[in-house]
């Protein structure tokens, strides 16, 4: 059975993932829209930065975040100046790390969905008196719904599974930064294989269920399938 400590890590994990996914959708939507529409010279570099977490070892990302958010880092000095203290080894540090770590998993499906819509529905909306802002909400968002579903699921599940970044910037503080993946590692280190099984099994079931829904329940044609 899951111990209460294990349950706590599960709850904490879903809390981090939930907050991170919300932030990702709020930030990622305008970013993905801009990347789809812009002809700016910055499109290439920003696309590359957004995709970086896909290829970068999480420990590398975590290391740089640790340095930047630490007392001598640029972000650390800013947060100190704002009276927030430093972020490493805090819950919100974990959220920041998760957001950066999962950003391509939200931005890229949205970008694909936006690109598939094309400019035609927007032109139709413009000829029907809808301002660009209006048509984004009344035309783009509904048409990109499959992309939003994919982005939400991928962003959330990917954050749930993160390990390297967490270990670098969050550490292993119970009820604060100890997430499921770290707890499994703890169990294995302590040779508590039964506990590790329970947690690992939970995550396996969770991931499989989510992907099963993604690939079967939602009509294949309407979902931007992440991996084909």
């Amino acid at each position, binding site marked *: 059975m899951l111990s209460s400590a294990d349950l706590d890590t599960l709850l904490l994990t879903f809390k981090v993932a939930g907050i991170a996914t919300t932030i990702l959708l709020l930030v990622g939507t305008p970013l993905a829209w801009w990347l789809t529409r812009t002809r700016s010279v910055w499109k290439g570099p920003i696309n590359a930065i957004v995709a970086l977490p896909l290829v970068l070892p999480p420990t590398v990302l975590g290391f740089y975040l640790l340095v930047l958010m630490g007392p001598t880092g640029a972000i650390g000095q800013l947060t100190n100046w704002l009276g927030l203290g430093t972020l490493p080894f805090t819950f919100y540090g974990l959220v920041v790390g998760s957001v950066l770590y999962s950003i391509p998993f939200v931005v890229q499906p949205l970008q694909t969905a936006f690109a598939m819509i094309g400019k035609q*529905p927007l*032109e139709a909306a413009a000829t029907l008196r809808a301002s660009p802002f209006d048509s984004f909400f009344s035309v783009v968002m509904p048409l990109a719904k499959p992309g939003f579903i994919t982005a939400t699921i991928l962003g959330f599940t990917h954050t749930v599974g993160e390990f390297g970044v967490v270990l670098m910037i969050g550490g292993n503080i119970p009820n604060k930064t100890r997430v499921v993946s770290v707890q499994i590692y703890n169990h294995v280190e302590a040779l508590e294989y039964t506990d590790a099984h329970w947690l690992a099994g939970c995550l396996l079931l969770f991931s499989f269920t989510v992907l099963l829904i993604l690939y079967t329940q939602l009509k294949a044609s309407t979902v931007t399938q992440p991996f084909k």
Partner: protein
Amino acid sequence: MTDIKARFRLAYDDFSLNVDLSLPGTGVSVLFGQSGSGKTTLLRCIAGLEQAPKGYLKINGTIWQDSERKIFLPTYKRPLGYVFQDANLFSHLTVLDNLQYGLKRIKNNLGIIKLNQTIELLGVGHLLERMPSNLSGGERQRIAIARALALNPEILLMDEPLASLDLKRKQEILPYLSRLHQQLDIPVLYVTHSQQEVAQLADTLVILENGRCLASGPLAETQSRLDLPLAQDREAATVWQVHIAEHESDYHLTRVQFDGGSLSLSLVEAEIGSPLRVQIYARDVSIALTEPSATSILNVLPAVIKQITEGRDSQAVVQLKVGQQLLLAHITRKSLLMLGLRIGMSVFVQIKGTSILN
């Protein structure tokens, strides 16, 4: 009376548009040209979907664009209706929601009445609950036209609304367009490369080629201009606006009246006095010096030769005036020479066939 003033200059890598147009504020102005002539780009400039770096556009006294004064009204602020080539309905909305999309965005109490009229005019009342993906191409295009009209626009812009449809669907929509033509009191700009649609719908004809305006004017006048390639075309024709004068039911014929004479047509099911468009192909018109007394051809009319051009091959094109109507005749150069036809001569034309357009 000029109510539309449009001047645009725009250059892409492989195409440039340079037009200066004055068009009437009523009736259908057809922008005619081959693909690549710039007709769609011109329409998009008028809609504001394309922003010409140099442009001036005035519709019914309102400036929509004036690049010199840095005025550019964005599309959504222009009181226009636009029909795209492929309907471009919102796939996530039902037909009714598509029709109401624009209405919800204008403050106008007349909206609902206008919408109901439009639904009736285009015969789409039975489709309202459907999704666009469950409609035929013709139905989709009718919804698109209704959606544009429901807004009660000041001008209707139509970009090849029939081009993506097969012949059967075209025949299904054309009557609706003709009905619109008679009932709308706003100017319509209609882009097409089809001569049939020109004949059926145009009041004013604008001919575009390589981004330039080759000619612009009333339909019959422009159709019969001998300096334009249109008059040389095998399908060259003139369209006459006529009125039904009487029915000769014994012979299954209808007599129609035009400015300066009358014609016999095969029976037209329409009331006396109703207007009709009749198309006369240049190849169906022959010329005689004296009035032929013994001929099976019903329509023999006195005419005056206005212009003549000789083609390089066997053909010559003659522009004639019958009453107040202009008419084209394709004859052989040999006949031209043997009859000694000259500008100003009074002759008789025999019209072998006519086609009724609406």
